[in-house]
């Protein structure tokens, strides 16, 4: 048990270092010169040299990485070249919005996928199953930004049930906060649930053929008890893994959805930074999001161990 966590922890450390190094190198090794990008192509050599010195770009690569890593660990990601605001400050400002959006959308996706997957596996081949599969197939082909626009058109612009753009912090007014996040979260959830549904359904069908399910029936247990207390857990290993990897898709989803619904999240900030070529901000966002992504998948591994006692050995 302990050694499993130690091994995982060690692996986490290595992956984090790699991801941090990659975020750093991405900005450093790419063709082009930050100083030139900053000053424009017709800058004088002296000006360029001065900016390079200011940014520490004239030092050896390893030294710069260590310097950057030290800063990163202390929470110092430098300042935006353009607004001069510390990158960490901007990120911390926007992060809660994105985290809330991702939690809501992932939760919503699971809330649709799990009952649907369980029911369809139980009734595999039935009308309901065929219907759910058809819906999933259609939604699988609908990119998140198309769903977002469709939802906005229907529920915000035509029916006027929910606001189309804007944001209210949760602390200010929880109800209006949720009203603003409902459509964005739903758009991501609708795009994400089909793949969760598909893996759960397939694994569940396989589980339901197992002898231990036959034994559970032979014990006189009812179908609901068997489905949720006997079959769901051993059927959810792939689901858990997928929903960890799915975070990558959710990040992409958050990027567009925040832009469409005007949510002040990290995704919209990152897109803006890319337009403005605000390199420090881009690098900071990439590093923070990637590290978050790695940490989430580490958490997923731990959940996996909780679900499957055999893994812990």
């Amino acid at each position, binding site marked *: 048990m302990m050694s499993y966590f130690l091994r995982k922890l060690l692996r986490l450390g290595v992956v984090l270092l790699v991801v941090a190094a*990659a975020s750093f190198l991405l900005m450093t090794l790419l063709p082009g010169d930050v100083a030139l990008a900053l000053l424009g192509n017709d800058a004088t050599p002296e000006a360029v040299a001065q900016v390079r010195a200011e940014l520490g770009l004239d030092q050896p690569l390893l030294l710069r990485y260590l310097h950057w890593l030290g800063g990163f660990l202390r929470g110092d990601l430098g300042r935006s070249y353009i607004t001069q605001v510390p990158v960490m400050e901007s990120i911390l400002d926007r992060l809660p919005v994105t985290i809330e959006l991702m939690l809501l959308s992932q939760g919503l996706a699971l809330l649709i996928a799990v009952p649907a997957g369980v029911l369809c596996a139980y009734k*595999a081949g039935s009308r309901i199953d065929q219907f759910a599969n058809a819906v999933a197939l259609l939604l699988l*082909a609908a990119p998140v930004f198309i769903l977002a626009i469709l939802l906005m058109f229907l529920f915000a612009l035509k029916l006027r049930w929910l606001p189309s753009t804007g944001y209210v912090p949760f602390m200010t007014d929880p109800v209006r906060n949720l009203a603003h996040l409902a459509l964005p979260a739903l758009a991501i959830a609708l795009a994400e649930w089909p793949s969760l549904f598909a893996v759960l359904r397939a694994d569940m069908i396989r589980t*339901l053929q*197992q002898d231990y399910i*036959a034994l559970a029936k032979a014990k006189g247990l009812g179908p609901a008890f068997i489905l949720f207390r006997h079959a769901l857990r051993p059927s959810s290993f792939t689901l858990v893994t997928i929903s960890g990897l799915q975070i990558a898709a959710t990040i992409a989803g958050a990027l567009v959805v925040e832009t469409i619904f005007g949510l002040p999240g990290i995704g919209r900030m990152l897109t803006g930074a890319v337009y403005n070529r605000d390199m420090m901000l881009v*690098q900071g966002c990439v590093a923070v999001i*990637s590290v978050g992504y790695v940490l989430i998948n580490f958490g997923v591994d731990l959940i996996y161990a909780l679900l499957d006692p055999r893994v812990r050995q």
Partner: protein
Amino acid sequence: MSAFADDPGHETASAMAAPSPMQVRDRLGFRFWLPAVWIAIVVALATTANLLPLPSPIETDFAALSNWPDRTHWFGTDQLGRDILSRAIFGARISLTVGLLAPALGLGIGMLLGMAAGYFRGRVEAVIAAAMDAVMAFPGILVVLAVTAYVGASVPLLVIVLGVLTVPTFMRVARANTLVFAQHDFVLAARAMGATHWRVLSLEILPNVVIPMLIYALLVISRIIVVEGVLSFLGLSLPAPWPTWGNMIADGQVDLATLPYIPFIPAALMFLTVLSINLIGERLRARTDLRGSAL
């Protein structure tokens, strides 16, 4: 394990193991041919766009701003008076170019790596797998954003970056298939007769790995078309005023309430295209799975 309880897989597998090739062709059905026809139309229009009697996709016509679809403009015009049909057809080019070239690149590299990993095993496999894990540790979209931020939006760049990002999945499929075929008698026989690794890989394994790879590629193509859509929606693909489905949707979104046809027409085209590719891929995959189990 017993094959009891609710067991659709068991029954269908045993029932479908037998049918003749003729029956299989019939079974592809309209769920295959309808999407195939749609894809054929989209590809035909996109490739011959220059030759078609279409208005310019980028020239503005101030006499026809925001016209709803009518007889002269079948899909209407956008806020700058540009013909949406023409823009949609030219926009399809980008989706198809990126959607085909990026997976082609990823398939090429991924297949080489995957075959090497599955055939040589051992250290070669370990190194390749570790490299792929490193690529996968990043959410792909961030890489695209970061690189575009640096180099600026361009289609060749998009193809390269998205192509590289698809390498790990292709590598896995190639490795899995190579592992299976490397154990088959014909490969072992070829080895026993003194064939070089290169001969075995290119003559015995490659032909068997290519088909499942191509079918898998359909799935990747549809996913890349969506990603290209996201990026051009964010303005990070082909620069304006050239149309892509993504940037048409983004431009149209501004007047979503009053002129919904402007974003929804390219959105529908994109949806139908992705759906068609998925349907075709699903049908083909079902077919090769059968072949695999019949072996």
